[in-house]
């Protein structure tokens, strides 16, 4: 818990939100059917979330305190939390239950928010800017809103000074330095830091039955069943379809100079050059 630095105690309780995602870099498209080939695609910690963990760990290292990693997902998301412990998190909570499944960002933010409340006081929630499977970048702000704390989105640098969060974040046309009261929520981008590799003894210890990972369901966090999972999700998927990739491709051939001339010709026909 954060206390005034002037009192000589300045430990930070940091909560890091972690999502396990399929490694989309490995997802390929079947060239014949145009559908996703998801078989055998490994699950990884969402890349931005690794930077969130690193940011949380560095804050703890300079201030003392605790880092707790929280993830909602299927039971195998335990792997992501083990990795978080391997990197140095003090404890982890896996929110897993059939009732949590099918959640959109609203239901997810409720679930994560409830869990954070259940964990007690916190000074900072750190999350990755966005997940590579959903790309919504909505969870951070929605959790911040649920917890009624200010947010710093897309932070590239952060430090805690005099009981306040000082951060820099990227903007469309510059870098913005902000100051923000604690508790707060921060999302970080990959420019924020270079995540450490797990420390193998800690990583292996995370497989012990007594590793500090709690598994919580809706009752454990006092969640209203109507507000979680598919039931608590106002948005529904009506349909999915693969965008038509097939275009008429014109292949240029010949020597580089010939191709270049042909290309200029085509660009001119299309009024592009």
């Amino acid at each position, binding site marked *: 818990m954060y206390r005034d630095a002037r009192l000589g105690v300045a430990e930070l309780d940091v909560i890091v939100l972690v999502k396990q995602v399929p490694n989309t870099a490995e997802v390929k498209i079947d060239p014949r059917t145009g559908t996703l080939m998801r078989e055998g695609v490994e699950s990884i910690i969402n890349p931005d979330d690794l930077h969130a963990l690193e940011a949380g760990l560095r804050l703890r290292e300079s201030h003392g305190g605790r880092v707790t990693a929280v993830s909602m997902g299927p039971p195998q998301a335990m792997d992501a939390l083990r990795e978080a412990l391997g990197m140095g998190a003090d404890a982890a909570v896996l929110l897993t239950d059939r009732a949590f499944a099918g959640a959109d960002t609203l239901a997810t*933010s*409720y679930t994560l928010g409830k869990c954070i409340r259940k964990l007690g006081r916190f000074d900072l929630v750190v999350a990755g800017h966005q997940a590579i499977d959903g790309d*919504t970048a909505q969870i951070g702000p929605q959790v911040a809103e649920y917890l009624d704390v200010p947010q710093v989105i897309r932070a590239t640098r952060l430090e805690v000074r005099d009981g306040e969060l000082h951060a820099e974040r990227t903007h*469309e046309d510059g870098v913005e330095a902000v100051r923000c009261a604690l508790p707060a929520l921060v999302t970080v981008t990959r420019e924020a830091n270079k995540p450490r590799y797990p420390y193998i003894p800690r990583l292996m210890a995370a497989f012990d039955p007594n590793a500090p990972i709690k598994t919580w369901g809706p009752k454990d966090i006092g969640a209203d069943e109507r507000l979680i999972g598919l039931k608590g999700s106002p948005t529904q998927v009506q349909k*999915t379809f693969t*965008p038509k990739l097939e275009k008429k491709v014109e292949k240029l*051939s010949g020597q*580089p100079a010939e191709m*270049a001339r042909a290309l200029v010709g085509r660009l001119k026909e299309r009024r592009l050059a």
Partner: protein
Amino acid sequence: MAVWVEKDDCAGCETCVEACPLGAISMRDGLAIIDEKCNSCGACVESCSTGAIKSDAAAAKADTSQYRDVWIVAETRHGRVRPCTLELLGCGRGLANALDQRLCAVLAGKEVKGFAADMAEHGADVVYVMEDAGLEEGRTLPHARAITDAAREKKPAVVLFSATPFGRELAPRVSRRLGTGLTADCTELGIDGATKNLLQTRPAWGGNLMATIYSPDSRPQMSTVRPGVMKALPREPGRKADIVGLKVNLKAEDARLQVVELKKGLRKKVDLTEAKIIVSGGNGVGSKEGFKLLEELAAVLGAEVAGTRIAVEEGWITADRQVGQTGQSVCPDLYIACGISGAIQHRSGMAGAKTIVAINTDPNAPIFQIADIAVNADLFKVVPELIAALRARGDEC
């Protein structure tokens, strides 16, 4: 029950007990308790001075018939309305027509009244104007309060934000506060003919899959809309709209985040989303020196230089020039992909380009699947020739 008291935060002040129109709140052990008479109206949420009362009110089924009109939330930057706001108006106009409801522009800021005419001339029927010194550009908390309050009062059926960095951090807060659904970064919006639900289509899986999302039971229906995809309507000079001022009730806590400074010089403004021509490089470019060649080509074409994640990670270009899932989404008239294999993360950010030229030595590179013109050759041989050919052409003119 979708309204509850966070016990840790309750100060025991009893304000909510008086605020509740149904008498559903009582005190026990010095803390507020909400009982089953609660119909989740949210009056207590507003009355609570410590923010201890939370609501997910609208997550329960909303009476959709009470919600009317299409709202677009205007965004200003450096004192000007952003082009994407006009695109939202163009898109919202179509939706409003399909619903046979009004298109309303929401203008919130320190001094924004002057833009109301712009909104009208680009398609708005109503312009809600909210002015307050606290509504500085890019401040999420005060804007979230202003827009949420307005939406609670007016009950729009649809609220659209631009999927700009600001829109994407503001909209989720508003959706959470209203307890309604939000669909990110939509590239297509439409109205279901039968149900009148908003159909929100967005790319998923890095653009390999499109998903159409809707919110049958919750209102308002909210989306952020990818800039550069929708078309603004041509200005219709003299077109009028009802201009309605709305009260803004900011609170001290809305100023919990302060901007200390904006270091503009640190980053040259690179707005790839508005570029007409982009010359982009990937792994095949191989080095910072390699990108010099691309810069030369870009100079001849009047284009912006961009690149893939690898090019950024290798330090060949700056991060603000990254195109793709974790960079910018672009839709220029011409995109020249040099030495880019075309991983889905990259394609998702540029597949919308009108003409794609791909130069790559690997004939099986996925980029060729989406290219219009395929040049299966070494970029270091073709690009110099291309520059020469373009220059020669320039001399002819």
